[in-house]
């Protein structure tokens, strides 16, 4: 009986002592895959963006893109529009959009027009220059390059859980719409499934 008493008491002491550790911070390569919680993270954003852009650039729309462009650039101009978060996680869709823009730019096959707040900031800067900059260095108005295509998309997810095992299925869909004709010229999707032991 007495030896049985010692064991639980020892556990109590160890349990209390366990809370006394300090915090340790380790710096790591940003390319390292870190799946701490299992939720959508920067690795997913980068991987999906690269994969979707590769899919997109293989599409028929790029090869059939008109060569008679007149004054327009020889490559299609794409603006990345809204990516809507339809998941049950707070996903930074701006970060995902930036990843898509980066991947498209790195391909060298398209030009990227700034959208959203970046475009507003550029316009604001142009307005400021028209007032404060020397006229020969000030950016001109009306020389923005209009986009040929707008890319939009959505991220959806289905979560399932049994006991301490959770699965999350992500479906990412993107589409490219011709700005002039409003025709959808390309649609693509990718799926990711994660199993998380809680």
């Amino acid at each position, binding site marked *: *009986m*007495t030896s*049985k*008493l*010692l064991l*639980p*008491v*020892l*556990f*109590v*002491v*160890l*349990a*209390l002592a*366990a*809370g006394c550790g300090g915090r340790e911070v380790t710096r790591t390569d940003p390319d390292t895959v870190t799946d701490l*919680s299992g939720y959508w993270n920067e690795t997913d954003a980068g991987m999906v963006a690269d994969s979707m852009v590769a899919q997109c650039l293989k599409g028929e729309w790029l090869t059939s893109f008109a060569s008679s462009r007149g004054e327009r650039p020889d490559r299609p101009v794409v603006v990345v529009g809204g990516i*809507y*978060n*339809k*998941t*049950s*996680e*707070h996903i930074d869709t701006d970060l995902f959009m930036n990843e898509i823009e980066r991947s498209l730019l790195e391909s060298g096959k398209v030009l990227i027009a700034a959208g959203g707040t970046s475009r507003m900031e550029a316009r604001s800067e142009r307005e400021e220059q028209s007032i404060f900059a020397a006229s020969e260095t000030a950016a001109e108005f009306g020389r923005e390059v209009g986009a040929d295509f707008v890319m939009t998309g959505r991220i959806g997810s289905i*979560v399932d*859980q*049994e006991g*301490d095992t959770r699965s999350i299925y992500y479906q990412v869909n993107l589409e490219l719409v011709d700005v002039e004709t409003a025709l959808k010229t390309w649609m693509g999707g990718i799926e990711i499934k994660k199993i998380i032991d*809680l």
Partner: protein
Amino acid sequence: MRKRIIRIPGRDFVAIAVLAALATLACGAGHTLTMGSVVRTLDSDGIDAAVEEFRESFGDSTGRNRLLYLMELGNLYRLAGDYPTAVRLFLEADRLSDLQGAFKPGRRIASLLTSDLALEFRDADYEKVMINYCLAVCYAAMGDVENALVECRRLNNKLKVMNAAYGDMGNRYSDDAFVRYFSGVLYEKAGELNDALVAYRRSVYVYDEFYSRYYGLPAPDMVKIDVLRLCRELGFRSMLEEYSASWPDLEPDSLYRDPGWGEIVVVAEVGFIPPRKEISRTAVVNDRIYRIALPSIPEVRRMPHSLEAWSGDFTVRGFLAEDLTAIARKNLEDQAGRILAKAVARLVLKAGVAEAGEELVEKLTGEEGIASGMAGFLLSLAGAFTERADLRSWLTLPDRIYMARLTLPPGRRRVTVTMDGKTIHSGTVDVKPGDILLLFPRGG
């Protein structure tokens, strides 16, 4: 007499066990007192003073009460209108609550030798749901409907997991009718009418199936009208006929809503959820002290409130949408069997420890005398002393939540909201055609 006991080899282990128990009590049991004072400060001196007092008085902000700390502080910031800070705290709380399944053997054993207060605070089912409700309110108040809807979807997943965990055992709080209805409003605001209808229909089902039976709160007419209205707007004729036949008393005129008008939706939280009280029984049998202590939420008589929202000639009366005190009480009753089983297990273990202590003293002194008897008695006394009910709960949650929907022609309009005749909100809003504006006044 005491000196003889202190000389016993192994006394350090016993002393540490008792000291660990006492330390445990110091950290956890004061929450009810702390929050009682903070809530009084909130009523008398306002939010800033309440937050300051809370930060100073909440003892354990990083240990096993971290989740409770985050929920209370997040809610204080929400009530103060500091939504970004509230969101940061609630998101951490939600993540912590989500990952709480991990088993911590040290704490479990400590809890068997002391009380449930030695365990990490685990949020009750309704508290888990309220984290997402509070987050949705914060996002909606900041005008971020997309992220408010993330919370609605997250809540859906959470409820599925919660109910799967109960299995056939059943659970009276299996869904939240008010939060479903609030989700429907958010979906409608985002223009996602199909999802809004699903949420409204689910809300009606939960009100009539569970809230009516357990909390005396059947589906309010407003919720039913919203179901009929969206059925009509979406062209779901057979569904509309089915529901209309079920609710023949509802005025057909109330279904028409001019698409050129806008809407104000008021969500008014009233009062605070009452703290848990300890029910205990102590018995002395054969020089041993036995004590059992359980948490409860006592019944108190409460008066109904009256919510009204008006702008010019347009007036609407609100309705009770959620009775969190009733939910908390039933939820605790649902847990009573499990809490009692743990308390009995503790009682048996503590009795065993006292017996072992007495036997140990007998062996060392070589006789069955006063010293060994006293050792057993003191150990049983320590066991009884450390037996406390776990009274920890989220105390800045509202007692009840009322809602009102006011439809208005477009333009700048002054909207006044009263609770029991007292103005709780008065301000000018810009009503836009087809838009829904959310107001979150606090009703005292």
